[in-house]
């Protein structure tokens, strides 16, 4: 009995080893930060951007690149990723993925087949940002080295986040949202475009990060419009902004209107609420959009007497008209692509489910001629640190001298 107890005690020590089951040491894996998916004939070409940990957090930094990229092709995404081990020295770990980039050509051919792996695999978390490399292949884009942020994937991701928050014409799209809009009726998908200024070859060298004004830089712009899983085209900056106004995705942005004397007045929008209401009138579906904006005066580059309530009202009117123009431009661009990126179909489904059941199969033909009524209300709240414009006094002085 005593021997049995000793034996039991010894074997119970094995329980302490359970944490070592399938343990992976940090030195045996590489962390992929970005993943690019391109079409290579029938195959998919997958490129990963992996960290070079010694260059990011080491004691002595050399001039070696902070990241490396590896590519492999395979009939499916999963096969291609496993094939990466042929070129990458260690096993690739996808759990820290920050960014997934599709080449523009690939996006035009359709991205639907690539999504299953991304959501099914347990190693991939679904909180990465997805973007399209505009006018470029995905692998070229993620090979670019960036200054400031040592890891290019982080740079793109934080740019997307901050520009959505402060500038508005971009939108961060995560996997869940993309799949929801690609696979359900009544709303089409969009993805933010990322493009490169400068030569792609220059950008892959470490020298690129040594200039204050790097020869190759990554920019964010424009929203890519999908129909189904295929990229149809791009909304320009103004239309992209309109898209964000309509989908109530503006947290902070600026807008300007002309004064009467050729200068401009700019306002900072700090609150924007949009209400989208679908309705069916005489059997015809229509959409009513109501945008409510609160803004502060940010920059007056003309002579205006802001102390008069009438002036403020005029500026508000102009801003309202401009917002309506932006939104309408965006709608007509999307209607031209025959892609319901705003979710108008969903709005009609919500307000009149029975009618939607009848028209949902013909939605593609109804949508381009859909009647959309845009209303805007702008309220100007604060004047900034000063009340009257500086330029007015400057102008008066120059007039006197003349």
């Amino acid at each position: 009995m005593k021997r049995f107890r000793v034996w039991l005690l010894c074997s119970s020590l094995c329980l302490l080893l359970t944490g070592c089951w399938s343990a992976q040491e940090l030195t045996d894996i590489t962390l992929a930060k970005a993943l690019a998916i391109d079409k290579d004939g029938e195959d998919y070409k997958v490129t990963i951007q992996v960290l070079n940990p010694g260059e990011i957090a080491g004691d002595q930094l050399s001039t070696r690149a902070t990241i490396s990229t590896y590519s492999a092709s395979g009939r499916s995404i999963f096969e291609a990723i496993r094939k990466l081990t042929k070129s990458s020295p260690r096993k690739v770990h996808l759990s820290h993925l920050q960014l997934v980039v599709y080449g523009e050509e690939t996006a035009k051919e359709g991205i639907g087949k690539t999504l299953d792996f991304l959501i099914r695999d347990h190693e991939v978390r679904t909180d990465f940002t997805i973007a399209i490399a505009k006018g470029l292949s995905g692998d070229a884009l993620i090979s670019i080295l960036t200054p400031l942020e040592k890891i290019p994937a982080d740079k793109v991701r934080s740019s997307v986040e901050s520009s959505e928050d402060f500038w508005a014409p971009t939108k961060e799209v995560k996997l869940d949202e993309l799949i929801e809009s690609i696979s359900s009726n009544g709303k089409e998908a969009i993805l933010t475009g990322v493009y490169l200024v400068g030569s792609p070859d220059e950008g892959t060298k470490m020298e690129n990060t040594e200039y204050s004004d790097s020869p190759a830089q990554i920019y964010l712009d424009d929203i890519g419009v999908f129909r189904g899983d295929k990229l149809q085209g791009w909304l320009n900056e103004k239309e992209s902004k309109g898209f964000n106004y309509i989908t109530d995705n503006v947290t902070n942005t600026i807008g300007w209107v002309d004064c009467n004397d050729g200068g401009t007045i700019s306002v900072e929008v700090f609150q924007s609420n949009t209400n989208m209401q679908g309705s069916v009138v005489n059997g015809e579906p229509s959409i009513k959009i109501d945008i409510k904006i609160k803004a502060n005066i940010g920059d007056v580059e003309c002579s205006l007497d802001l102390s008069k309530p009438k002036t403020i009202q005029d500026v508000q009117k102009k801003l309202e008209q401009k917002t309506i123009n932006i939104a309408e431009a965006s709608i007509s661009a999307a209607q031209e692509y025959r892609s319901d990126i705003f979710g108008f179909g969903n709005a009609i489904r919500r307000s009149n489910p029975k009618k939607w059941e009848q028209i949902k199969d013909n939605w593609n033909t109804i949508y381009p001629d859909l009647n959309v009524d845009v209303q805007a209300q702008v309220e100007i709240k604060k004047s900034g640190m000063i009340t009257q414009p500086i330029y007015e006094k400057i102008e008066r002085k120059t007039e006197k001298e003349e």
Partner: protein
Amino acid sequence: MTEKLDGKQFTVLVIMNTLGASIIFIPSIATNYGKENGWITLIFSTILGVFIILLYNQIIKKLNGKEFFSTIDILFGKWLGAIIIMLLTCYIFINTFANLWAISDFISLQILMGTPFEVISLIIALTVLIAIRYGIEVIGRTAQLFFPFTMLCALLLTLLVIKDADFSNITPIFQLNKSATIVGTLPIVSVTFLELVILLAITDNVNNIQSARKGFLVGGFTSGLILLVITLACITVLGVQGTANYAYPIYALGQRISIFDFVERVEIIVAFIWFFTIFIKLCVSFYVFTNGISHLLKLKNYKTLSVPLALFIFLASILSVPNTFASFAFINGAYIVLSVTAGLILPLIILGVLLIKKRVF
């Protein structure tokens, strides 16, 4: 029987038994049937569940503190009684190994990816074995001890994702898919409230019949409410398509938690909810299972057979389920029939006979 549970412990056991296993599947099942009305399916299920519990409460009242299995023997006679008990224990057996499979599958899929399924399953089966050998009173107390943690995790999960909720996801409210919304209550009730029939066998351990009946109702209603809130959270945050796509939507919900980009990757709190609830559920079902078998074989002590039965359950869990897809087909098909038979038809017969044989009793 010297072991006693109080009313509170019984309530906790009811909640744990309803939530165990189901909490992680239900948002997905409900959304697959009812689409944006998935949460309404849960309201129907809870109402139906309350009626089922009222039926069970009638049985508890008539049993009046007597042991469930021996009462069946008295009511139906030696042979018919044995057949009914055998049917019930078979149902409990399927239930137990299916739940063991479910928790092991979840852990090996989401948390310990490299560890073989068999190892996880064996360790859980052994833990359950140890637990039931301590008796139902210890299980009840353990449940009571873990209950606040479980509820805290569930509360945290819902509160932390509420900022991502988009309530347009649940509109139009109950306009489309009406019939599917109602049909969806069937599989949901069969994995939640109908399984509570197992608890009938431990009601004789509750020190006060009145508090057992009250606990049954309160526990059932509370867990229905929790399931409703979780499903609502899944649909509003993940979207209809998202909830239906995931095998474990509530885990995906946990992955969405992000506070100031700082508190992130805390989805394991979801796993806590599941570990606690399903462990207690496994303990109770296995306890009742061993009791049923011992009763059939006229053994004095249920512990005698507990070790071989635990191994039996472990083997069943690794051999009976070919793959995940088969398990979903089972939940949405054969299991409904099993649950309705064991959880509704058998209790109805038992209650009927109890009412007729009132004088004999």
